[in-house]
């Protein structure tokens, strides 16, 4: 599955970059995230509960910031497993100046491979659920940064 989009955030590029590469901050915006463990500067482990339709799974996801050029771009790789299900993903983010001074546009794309029970049993709902979760994540990122002023 491939997803992409762009979102405007009312903050500078430096601020947005710092936020989205800080696992503690961005992790709290991931839907269902229960804990974030920082292993080193570029490796994190998240535990998250994900529901697709009537199926729920608790994923353990290993995340790696595979590439980064602050404050312009980053590539994050993820490998997660839950009982009977697995997810492998690569996310790319590019930050450019936003439409208003002091704002930033985040252009993002993600390739997500979902395997196992969730992909099989939830096949018809996976894409919709993923879109909803991505939307929730960005709403949260924008709201948190905006709240900081």
């Amino acid at each position, binding site marked *: 599955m491939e997803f992409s989009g762009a979102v405007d955030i009312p903050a500078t590029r430096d601020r947005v970059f710092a936020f989205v590469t800080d696992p503690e901050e961005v992790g709290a915006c991931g839907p269902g995230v229960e804990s974030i463990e920082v292993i080193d500067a570029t490796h994190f482990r998240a535990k998250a509960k994900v529901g697709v339709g009537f199926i729920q799974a608790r994923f353990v996801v290993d995340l790696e910031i595979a590439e980064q050029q602050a404050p312009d771009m980053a590539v994050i790789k993820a490998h997660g*497993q839950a009982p*009977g299900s697995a997810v492998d993903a690569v996310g790319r983010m590019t930050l450019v100046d936003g439409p208003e001074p002091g704002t930033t546009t985040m252009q993002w794309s993600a390739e997500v491979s*979902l*395997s*196992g*029970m969730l992909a*099989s*049993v939830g*096949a*018809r709902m996976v894409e919709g659920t993923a879109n909803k979760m991505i939307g929730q994540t960005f709403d949260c990122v924008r709201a948190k940064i905006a709240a900081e002023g």
Partner: protein
Amino acid sequence: MTTELEPRTSAAIGGMGHSVKRKEDPRFIRGAGEYIEDVVLPGMLWMDIVRSPYAHATIKSIDASEALKVPGVLAVITGADLEKAGLHWMPTLAGDKQMVLPTTTVMYQAQEVAAVVATDRYAAADGVAAVYVDYEPLPVIVDPKKALEPGAFVLRPDRGPDKANNHIWHWESGDRAAADAALASAEVRVSEDIYIPRIHVASIETCGCVADWDAVRGQLTLHMTSQAPHAIRTVLALVSGLPEQNIRVKTHDIGGGFGGKVPVYPGYVLAVVASLTVGKPVKWIEDRSENLQADSFARDYHIHAEMSATKAGKITGLKVKTIADHGYSDAAADPSKFPAGLFNVITGSYDFPDAFVEVDGVYTNKPPGGVAYRCSFRVTEAVHAIERMVDILAHEIGVDPAQLRMENFIQPEQFPYRTPTGWEYDSGNYGVALQKAMDLIGYDDLRKEQAEKRARGELMGIGISSFTEIVGAGPSKDFDIIGIKMFDSCEIRVHPTGKVIARIGVQSQGQGHETTFAQIIAEELGFPVGDVKIEYGDTDTAPYGLGTYASRSTPVAGAATAMASRKIREKARQIAAHLLECSPDDLEWEPGKFTVKGSPDRFKTIQEISFAAYTNHPVGMEAGLEAVDYYDPPNLTFPFGSYICVVDIDKGTGQVKIRRFVAVDDCGNIINPMIVDGQIHGGLTMGFAPALLESITYDELGNNQAGTFMDYLLPTAVETPRWELDKTVTPSPHHPIGAKGVGESATVGAPPAIANAVVDALWHLGVRNIDIPMTPQKVWAILHEKGLA
């Protein structure tokens, strides 16, 4: 001959031709059946299975430490544990091998990876969730054509360097040169690619077992859902090294088999290993998604067919090339000599001078299998292809499909008929069956109505399927599974009071064996059907047999039952002569008694003879009245029928509505007309389902896209059309009671009738073929492309 069989016995006896109510139904309708889930033994433990999320991946490690901390979890079994005992691979019935548990690599999504044994089902499930398997995903091959491309990675390196490809086997039948010549010189040639998708038997009862190892007695009892318990016992003995007399396989009531309960699944083996390990009974029951994702599938044939004919419509030749997708292991349950089953029955009901068919088996990252889903070994695929091709030819040359069939049928006087692919059809009368179906449905009027509707822009189609089945495997010279010949058996014991118990080598999964086999004995010996008890499915007591699939129960074990009855009748004649003080040659038999010729008052009933067998038998004769027969059929049997389907297609939604469906079946002499009708109703519904609703597809990562009944669409009574049945009766000349088998005819015959009707409705728009299932989405897309929707 096409005649109705009048019952020879009275209704009180209830022999062949009587619609005796099913003896098994009172327990089923009162909820008193005993299915595998109902088996509860003292101290019984539960097993649940960890399954792979990936269709292809390396297992880097398995960490069971958290699982073993779950309260109630007693053991976690991995491939490494099995490897120590050499049990990590097992043979398949097709002569390939498959993993019980993987040691390095998983080959399909939902493959078994580890087993958790616990004190109850919930603890076992919690344990499964706590096993952490570290996988490294590998590339996946879903498409069998890609699996055959040069450079494709090799799925099964275990086969050695000589087989460094994904090609399993090549099988061919018929005369290639003759078929090529027929095609080359043809006035008309038609060709088509036809895909028969992967489907699942989806029995309401999933698979399961209770393995019970008694270490003190050295006895293993395996309660299981199996269509072939004796073969399972032998395989278990060979694989485990346990003495075969110390292994008892016991089936119970089975909630649907349809071919899916023939194979040996890893879960059965794991439960046995678990019971041997912990020394207690271990139960394993699949859930619905496990059943749909991991059990043997059916079909999955990519067929390319070419057919030649004269301009006038006389068929001259057929050439078929097929790719069979077997998943990662060939775990089909086909007879050894027939890796593509009986697919070469593809010349069907037609008098083909020449034909050639070849099939190549291929590995992909999908579950193993290739079971005969309510069809005798790939006959559904063959019948669909030939019936579609005949329709395409008819439309191509502008001849009515019914007329084209009539002009190309094998004629009654040609039987026994040898096909160009080597089968000898026993009997048939195809034209009569088709004409009966046409008369019943009002074929000519429907064609007029169709023309009128087409002029108004409405979409109506009429489809015919005049199929020939091939069942009753089979003669020992050609048919075996893992070396065991495909005979079948019956043992009959008559008690002193004239009551009977008979045990058979086949296994009921709902077909009504307890009734129909009692009727065969009633027919042959005259005992009232209520006095005859039928047992099966306990390998300690029943005679050896290869089980129930491929419509073989009546053709093989039914014949054994008749033959065993006749042995008893011969002994009964001797006893009657002794009692009546006459020569055995002076006695006349009618069902239930021997009478002295010319003296109607001097007779002995079978009940009197039964009593005498134990109380007053002749000097020099063994006491008792029992017999056993192992029947080796001289040939297969060839049921047939003609189905006609009328559809209306909604232009707005693409929905195909079956307006009428007439099924004329001929299964030879009928034992119980009510049960035969029931078999046909069920079979038609199971043919309608893949035609319009069911298929298992995979995404590019090899994820099964039909893992629940929300996505694998089974028909309910709401969707199912009303079936209109009729029959002709053409007995099998070589079968002791002239019967042919019927369990699968309708599943085999129905899909092409429906498919032909849909294409018939759309042919004028330039539509030549639509692969099943013909879902509203698929039909709507075609209508949209043609500017109609």
